[in-house]
């Protein structure tokens, strides 16, 4: 690699980090607004026009709040928990292809930080690491509510990762590659994977809700039973990290879903408009972000509609419904591929 390439990669990483943090920041604002509209309210509208500076005010508040580390907690792990949570949330975006290649002068810049040939596996690895942040935080708090929240998070993530993995296997059977870049390329035109894998997508999106600890699967932080769940003892920016990592997770999993099932940066008629390559790339990035925002909106829509699952219902759904369905999906995909191709 030349120096220029390294610099370009570095800039790209910084941009993607910034974008995902800003998106996460404004997701908190969007969540409150969306919730308000669903409940016939107005939502935050005091800080700036339409409350646009609300996330900044919230962030400033997080920094100014007193930082409490409980006496009987394991101070080191107590700090490691939220750091790990936000770190794993952020590194998931590394393999997502945000767009095609951008040509500036002689340089061809692929809009993807790392095109690794096991991209899907990488995403899975990062997602399953994410639960460690919650587990460590819950354990280090030395509080039974936190511990219960952490245990729930762990068992929930383990249960739903299986179904998620199985639903992805069916997808990989049709795509034949683990690289997210190639998967995105294959969906050019109208060959979006949602058309071939509707059941797989349904299972995947349900599992994504469970993996990001979003309602209706937000049992780890279920305030009616567990006070605050794993972040009961947290205050100040450490709490902010936990809340933030949830939104970054939401952003990344929306990006993954858009890439895997909804054509990634592909948009209809992208090569029949007669635009130059760079413009197509930029429009592709915009198309991907529109898809991502649609998914984030869907996440919120579900959250403000569906009540929380009971714990046994959650386990029932995971083990007795989603896993058999996912296996059936693999079998059906296999049969159809054998007889049609």
């Amino acid at each position, binding site marked *: 690699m030349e120096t220029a390439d390294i610099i370009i990669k570095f800039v790209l990483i910084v941009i993607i980090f910034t974008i995902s943090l800003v998106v996460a920041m404004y997701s908190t604002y969007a969540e409150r607004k969306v919730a308000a509209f669903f409940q016939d*309210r107005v939502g935050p509208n005091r800080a700036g026009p339409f409350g646009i500076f609300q996330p900044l005010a919230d962030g400033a508040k997080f920094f100014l709040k007193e930082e409490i580390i409980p006496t009987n907690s394991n101070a080191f792990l107590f700090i490691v928990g939220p750091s790990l949570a936000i770190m794993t949330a952020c590194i998931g975006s590394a393999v997502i292809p945000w767009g095609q290649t951008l040509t500036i002068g002689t340089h061809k810049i692929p809009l993807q930080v790392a095109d690794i040939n096991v991209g899907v596996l990488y995403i899975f690895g990062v997602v399953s690491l994410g639960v460690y942040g919650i587990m460590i935080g819950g354990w280090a708090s030395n509080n039974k509510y936190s511990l219960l929240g952490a245990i729930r998070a762990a068992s929930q993530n383990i249960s739903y990762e299986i179904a998620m993995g199985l639903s992805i296997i069916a997808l990989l059977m049709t795509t034949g590659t683990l690289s997210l870049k190639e998967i995105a390329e294959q969906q050019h035109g109208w060959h979006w994977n949602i058309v071939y894998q509707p059941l797989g997508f349904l299972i995947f999106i349900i599992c994504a809700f469970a993996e990001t600890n979003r309602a209706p699967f937000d049992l780890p932080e279920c305030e009616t039973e567990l006070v605050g769940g794993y972040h009961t003892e947290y205050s100040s920016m450490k709490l902010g990290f936990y809340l933030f990592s949830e939104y970054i997770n939401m952003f990344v999993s929306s990006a993954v879903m858009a890439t895997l099932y909804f054509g990634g940066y592909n948009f209809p008629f992208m090569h029949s408009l007669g635009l130059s390559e760079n413009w197509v790339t930029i429009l592709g990035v915009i198309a991907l972000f529109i898809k991502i925002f649609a998914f984030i909106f869907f996440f919120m829509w579900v959250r403000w509609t569906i009540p929380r699952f009971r714990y046994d219902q959650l386990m029932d759904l995971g083990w007795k419904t989603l896993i058999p369905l996912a296996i059936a999906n693999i079998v059906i995909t296999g049969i159809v591929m054998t007889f049609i191709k």
Partner: protein
Amino acid sequence: MESLSNKKKVVDNRPLSLWERAYLPAIIRGMSITMKHYLFTKDVTIRYPEQKREFSENFRGMHSLKRDEDGRERCTACGLCALSCPAEAITMISAERQPGEEHLYREEKYAAVYEINMLRCIFCGLCEEACPKEAIYLDGDIVPSDYLRKDFIYGKDKLVEAPLNQ
């Protein structure tokens, strides 16, 4: 035992049908309902400082000490309001009217200091009913918020009506 109303709710313990157990149709129905609210229902919020809900006719807000038709204070510092006040929010110090002050005070005695502690006041309106001189009415607005307790003790400067302009 007779039930108070004729409403009856029959408990239905039948096991869920396959359609109900599929769960997704119910979710889709619920989500369409919330979407209807998102798109079509107007918000019910009254944006308070800019927009105010109309008070009812008999709303009891901040007190005002009234003046008579000549612009003289009606209050004669009899202390009945303070006596009737269940929250003991009213205190006053009376004074005798001096010659030459007839245009200021209607009676021969007047309240030199008249204070209402708005943190104690429960806005019951008993002072209004007790007053023999029709001097106090709870016809004002909501008592505004403040930072310090001492700022909630309203003296005559805040309570007495603005003088008449001839």
